[in-house]
């Protein structure tokens, strides 16, 4: 292959004049992490609410939850980003639309919202599955003890369901970090976008994307270990999940 390798490129000054290429990649990494973090908070909150109401006895709440999940799960993430970014400001009243469009970090907020809602549908599905995986007797026993439905969820069902859900939620968290790269299509200069612009400026395409790959892997391995630690800390002896005794 006729390719001029230059690993020293990372220390060269990028066209912005102030940062080296490596620094621009790290700047991109902070945007990736910020986007993933805030979107994850949103996804966990909405995902939990929707997941819970889909297991309640109220048929209308269940239908509402189902509609929410189908809406956000069945539209490709890329399309959702475009809808939030380009279509939403045009369908709201013009003053609001103009205000939306003039926000300084519009692409960041849009990415958080789009990614948050998209992932919340997937989290909701896992929350529902987690709750349904509990024996029906748990719910009945809680209610028979005189707990209200919210109390039954809060004290009995959810503490167990969340422990069961931790492994799939770990995958979802890894996904949200990787999916944040879709935000480059609406102009967020996150890690992948920085790698792309680095290769455009320097033409060192393999170095740029190798660096991005390594950074993603390091972040995701760190997240995986942190979530495993969380699994072990929250494990209840004799109940599902990693048992503290098994972790040597």
């Amino acid at each position, binding site marked *: 292959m*006729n390719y001029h390798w*230059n690993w020293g490129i990372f220390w060269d000054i990028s066209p912005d004049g102030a940062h080296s290429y490596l620094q621009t990649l790290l700047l991109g990494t902070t945007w990736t992490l910020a986007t993933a973090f805030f979107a994850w908070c949103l996804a966990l909150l909405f995902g939990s609410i929707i997941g819970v109401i889909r297991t309640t006895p109220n048929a209308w709440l269940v239908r509402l939850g189902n509609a929410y999940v189908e809406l956000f799960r069945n539209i490709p993430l890329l399309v959702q980003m475009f809808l939030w970014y380009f279509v939403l400001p045009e369908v709201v009243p013009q003053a609001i639309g103009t205000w939306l469009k003039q926000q300084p970090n519009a692409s960041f907020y849009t990415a958080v919202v789009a990614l948050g809602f998209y992932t919340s549908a997937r989290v909701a599905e896992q929350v529902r599955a987690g709750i349904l995986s509990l024996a029906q007797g748990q719910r009945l026993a809680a209610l028979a003890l005189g707990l209200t439905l919210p109390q039954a969820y809060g004290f009995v069902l959810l503490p167990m369901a969340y422990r069961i859900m931790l492994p799939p939620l770990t995958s979802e968290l890894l996904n949200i970090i990787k999916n944040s790269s879709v935000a480059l299509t609406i102009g967020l200069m996150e890690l992948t976008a920085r790698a792309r612009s680095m*290769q455009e400026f320097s033409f060192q395409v393999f170095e740029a994307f190798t660096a991005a790959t390594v950074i993603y892997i390091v972040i995701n391995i760190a997240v995986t270990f942190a979530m495993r630690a969380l699994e072990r800390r929250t494990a209840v002896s004799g109940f599902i999940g990693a048992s503290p005794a098994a972790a040597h």
Partner: protein
Amino acid sequence: MFAKFMLPAAAAASLFSAQAFAQDLTGTLKKIKDTGTITLGHRESSVPFSYYDDKQQVIGYAMDLCSRIIDSVKRDLKLAKLEVKLNPVTSATRIPLMANGTVDLECGSTTNNLDRQKQVAFTITHFVTANRFVSKLSSKFKTVDDLKGKTIVSTSGTTNIKQITEINSQKNLGLNILTAKDHAEAFLMVETDRAAAFVMDDILLFSLVATSKSPKDYVISADALSVEPYGIMLRRDDPAFKKVVDAAMVAIYKSGAINAIYDKWFLKAIPPKGVNLNLPMSAAFKKVVVNPTDSGDPAAY
């Protein structure tokens, strides 16, 4: 006696080198000769340089130039038949595909600059564009100073965004610079008022405006921020192939064939919509036609 010895030796040496040239082809020329094919990398929507028309055929100004280059290569290698393969490339794939030998020539609108020459080679410049901005006529922006404090957009990874970033810090304009994924999206940001102006190569702005919903609503700035030469890209460290390609380009310029090719794409209606860009040859490009150059230094134009 020494002189007597030298003469036949020199003659033999020159004979040997001539034979060596004919037989020991190297690099891309050898590959083309051995396989009987040449692969062109082309862009999908770089109007009017290299793009798909309404029949999904790849056409454009750079494609016309490349087909003439191919004719020259075929003549040089004395091939009866040379199969031409087309391979679409994007700004992200053009370098790997060039480096690994998938494409032999990239016929599009790639800026030739000194940084990029560390990775690839460029033949003679085939277009000289300038970095300008497009804005809505109603916003009345004339120079870059009028944009002070405004939100502007450019396409990520372009030399244009690099220049506007530099100008922004030099002139202390306080611009909020957005990046878009591609030209169409950047233009959309101006269309929907997300950005006040789009900074880009003027030729691309002309074609974006010409194909927009209401071309008369937009204006392209008169003052240029910089000069950018476009070149057809080939592998670096392949002087034999570059020599053939350069010679073909010079022949197009010297024979005057360039005028007809240029007029066809820039002064006449072009597919698919029959839009006429109406863009006469710039003074900078006329200079290149007279004195063909492959320089990647903007100061040379």
